[in-house]
């Protein structure tokens, strides 16, 4: 009986051997003890975080300082606290950590130490008015009395289209200028920022470059030079004031750097929130979720944008005038004088 199948037996042995070899190409499972999780998180940030040098953070020194707090007898809450403090050292709104199944969330507070420069109720009631039009779910526009278009863009989460922007700019084509209020806009999809900016130029404009982390080495970066390309649709070339505050973050920073080189565009308000890097997220071996910046954007003026930038014209809300938005008023004045 055996002899009958002798030809197949070596093949069967070969088959069993090779089908068990996928594990040979896999690294061993990491540990989930405190020390292993600390090392895993530190290594991920060391290898992938794109702005250690720009932020002036020596990550090796961070290891030396914080590793001393870690051993396998401390609680998960204590481990979480140490990793959270390391995260906050980077002062980066894109870099955060969620631990203990959502119990703790560590994220840099952008607004801390800065004044509040947005009152949405005042913007809607006193300026946007009743006769506004919507573009998608997050953009609305109307015309202010001195014949200046007011565009309020609350976030970049909802989809907008070129057709929607074309329609809006067609409606606003006879205005004297535009105010684009992106205060409090915490970002979303940066492609919408590029789409909107493309309507404000008729030629390709260099806007800066993004340094991406491409490998674990400290100097493993690639450089993507970015130019704003004009739309095929409706363009608007008259004065444009973009209103900023500390809540301007992430994809809204993309809008700022893409429009900054355009001669008719200027910013009014307060320092922006930054968040210039592209982000990546993942899970540690114990399931804790992290996000980090894997790149840094440097604009056409060689400015590092991640901590935010000052506007061209600084203005703030005055709490003594609760029904007035001094930043919009200042933008109107600037447009009228141009």
């Amino acid at each position, binding site marked *: 009986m055996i002899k009958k199948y002798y030809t197949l037996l070596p093949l069967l042995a070969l088959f069993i051997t090779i089908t068990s070899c996928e594990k040979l190409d896999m690294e061993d499972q990491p540990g989930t003890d405190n020390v292993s999780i600390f090392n895993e998180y530190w290594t991920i940030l060391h290898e992938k975080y794109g702005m250690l040098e720009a932020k002036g953070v020596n990550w090796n020194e961070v290891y030396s300082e914080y590793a001393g707090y870690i051993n396998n007898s401390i609680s998960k809450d204590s481990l979480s606290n140490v990793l959270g403090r390391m995260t906050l050292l980077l002062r980066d709104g894109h870099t955060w950590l969620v631990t203990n199944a959502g119990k703790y969330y560590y994220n840099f507070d952008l607004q801390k130490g800065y004044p509040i420069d947005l009152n949405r109720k005042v913007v809607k009631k006193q300026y946007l008015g009743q006769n506004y039009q919507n573009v998608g779910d997050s953009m609305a526009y109307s015309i202010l009395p001195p014949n200046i278009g007011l565009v309020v863009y609350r976030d970049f989460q909802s989809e907008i289209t070129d057709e929607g922007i074309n329609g809006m700019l067609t409606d606003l084509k006879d205005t004297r200028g535009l105010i684009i209020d992106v205060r409090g806009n915490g970002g979303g999809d*940066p492609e919408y920022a590029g789409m909107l900016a493309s309507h404000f130029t008729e030629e390709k404009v260099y806007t800066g470059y993004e340094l991406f*982390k491409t490998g674990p080495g400290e100097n493993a970066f690639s450089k*993507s030079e970015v130019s704003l390309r004009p739309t095929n649709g409706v363009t608007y070339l008259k004065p444009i004031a973009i209103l900023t505050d500390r809540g301007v973050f992430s994809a809204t920073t993309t809008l700022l750097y893409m429009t900054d080189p355009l001669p008719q565009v200027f910013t009014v308000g307060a320092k922006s929130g930054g968040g210039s890097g592209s982000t990546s997220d993942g899970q540690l071996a114990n399931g804790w979720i992290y996000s980090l910046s894997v790149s840094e954007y440097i604009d056409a003026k060689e400015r590092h944008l991640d901590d935010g930038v000052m506007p061209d014209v600084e203005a703030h809300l005055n709490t003594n005038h609760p029904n007035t938005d001094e930043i919009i008023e200042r933008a109107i004045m600037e447009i009228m004088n141009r």
Partner: protein
Amino acid sequence: MRIRNILIGVMTISGTLMSFAQETNTSILPGHIKITGGMAIQNYQNLKAAQHQLNGTGSTFELGWGKETKRSLWLVTAGMNNVNMKSSLSEYVEVKSTAIKFDIDYLRRLKEENVNWLLGAGINSNFNLLNNDRLQNDQSTYNFLNTLMLKTAVQKNFSLLGRTVQGEFSLGLGLLALGKDTKSFSFTTPQSFLEKGKYDYQGAANDADDPFMYHELMTIGNYRRIKTGLKLRFLPKSGKRHFWDVGYSWDYYSYAEVTDYRVTSGTHNLSLTYNFMFNRKK
């Protein structure tokens, strides 16, 4: 009429095969189609994303077509695997894996005696989509591997449970591949796209007009690809046009776009296949 046309189209696209069934070692099977269902077991690790391994079980489904002559064999197979993978280290690490695959194989008979030996080549396309609902920017990633493979198979007939059964061992070795992986070392876009410095927010990598623009050519050594299988085919009784086979196959790939950060996957399939010979003379 319209519905009939659609059905014909589907059959053409997903035609696949199966394997080569023979009543004897010298007889030739005409064209036949098959439908396969079964269980998939997958092991996966992507060191660019995390060090932990993922494992899980799911389902596999295939449609196939094959044609066999005295000298050669054509096989076409299309299929899909769905597997829910988890980490053994944490209940919070969970990834859904969907693989869509398409194979075209051509084999020539080298020897047709007591044992049949076949040798040939094949093209395999694998689209592997991974989804982790707990993440945001990296929630969905995929890789797309188009592989040129060296193929071989050995067949031998024997009796089992009063039936003539054909045992088959097949082996495919990846020679080179054109691959695209949306997960780079640090970001959800192809590694080559980042390294070439092409990234902006007015047309990301995935929107490129040319579907092969950001594929990378990977060769044996870095790219390791093996497909192998064992099959027991219960050959049709005289006058019958259908038969069954049971099989086990293993599909393995591993590559590293960034040194030391390999992506490795091994999928084990247990399957039961129904075969129908559509132009066999009774």
